[in-house]
């Protein structure tokens, strides 16, 4: 009995012919499976290279390092896909589902790479950068000085120590969220949720002091 092959066979009944062919070949054995794995790896590597090139200009990673990152992402995505083949439910084409894995691996590798040569240490706090982060013009400082001072006070008084650490790293120090998750041994989702709650608290504090409207987005 092979649970992955059974689940894959069940999914294959509900998917498009091309996806069913992929599932059949990857859940099989011998030369057919090896050929499918080689073809899938080639496809993943192409997507990884393309994604690295797309993101490259915004990263401090170039040349062979970026190529290595693409190779690692493709290899790790192939392992993840073959391990999770039984979880494919046919909601999209198989290749789209597979591309998602390699895109996520590229993100993960870029997040880890950040700490090889970080632009700022995690514990830095240069609040003078804050106006620039949001595009406040120095020439109009009289208009925003009080607002940003109130924001900083709210960061110090309203947030938990962990929320404050995450806010300072992401907003003040411009540390990418994925890189911060790696450094803190956390996950993207957990860090995002922490920032989500922090944003809500900060807005409420600014609204209570007349600096901003209350957030009514998403409410009917």
């Amino acid at each position, binding site marked *: 009995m092979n649970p992955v092959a059974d689940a894959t066979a069940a999914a294959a009944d509900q998917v498009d012919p091309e996806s069913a062919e992929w599932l059949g070949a990857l859940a099989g054995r011998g030369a057919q499976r090896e050929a499918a794995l080689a073809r899938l790896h080639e496809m993943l590597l192409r997507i990884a290279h393309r994604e690295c090139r797309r*993101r490259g200009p915004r990263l401090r990673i170039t040349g062979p390092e970026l190529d290595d990152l693409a190779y690692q992402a493709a290899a790790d995505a192939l392992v993840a896909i073959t391990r999770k083949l039984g979880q494919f439910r046919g909601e999209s084409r198989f290749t789209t589902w597979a591309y*998602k894995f390699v895109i996520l691996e590229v993100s993960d590798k870029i997040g880890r790479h950040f700490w090889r040569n970080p632009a700022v240490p995690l514990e830095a706090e240069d609040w003078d950068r804050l106006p620039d982060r949001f595009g406040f013009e120095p020439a109009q400082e009289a208009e925003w000085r009080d607002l940003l001072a109130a924001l900083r006070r709210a960061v110090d008084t309203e947030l938990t120590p962990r929320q404050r650490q995450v806010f300072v790293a992401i907003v003040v120090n411009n540390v990418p969220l994925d890189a911060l998750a790696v450094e803190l041994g956390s996950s993207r989702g957990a860090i995002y949720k922490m920032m989500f709650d922090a944003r809500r608290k900060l807005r409420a504090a600014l609204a209570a002091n007349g600096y901003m409207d209350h957030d009514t987005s998403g409410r009917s």
Partner: protein
Amino acid sequence: MNGYSALDRFLRADPRDVGCAQAIEILHVYAELVAAGEPAEQRYPGIAVHLQACGPCGEDFDGLLAALRDETC
């Protein structure tokens, strides 16, 4: 005052936001809908809100969509 608008947008925490885990779970389905010109935002409003607010998930979505669009070129 552009900075005010940017800060205002940043501090909006939309309760429809589904978070990273749900967005990633369905990202391939959402991307195919968008690539096909289907009204993905109407079908999955919480995903659409999240992808607008979350930089890393939005980046992953852009990458996946670019991969799908490259296929058809």
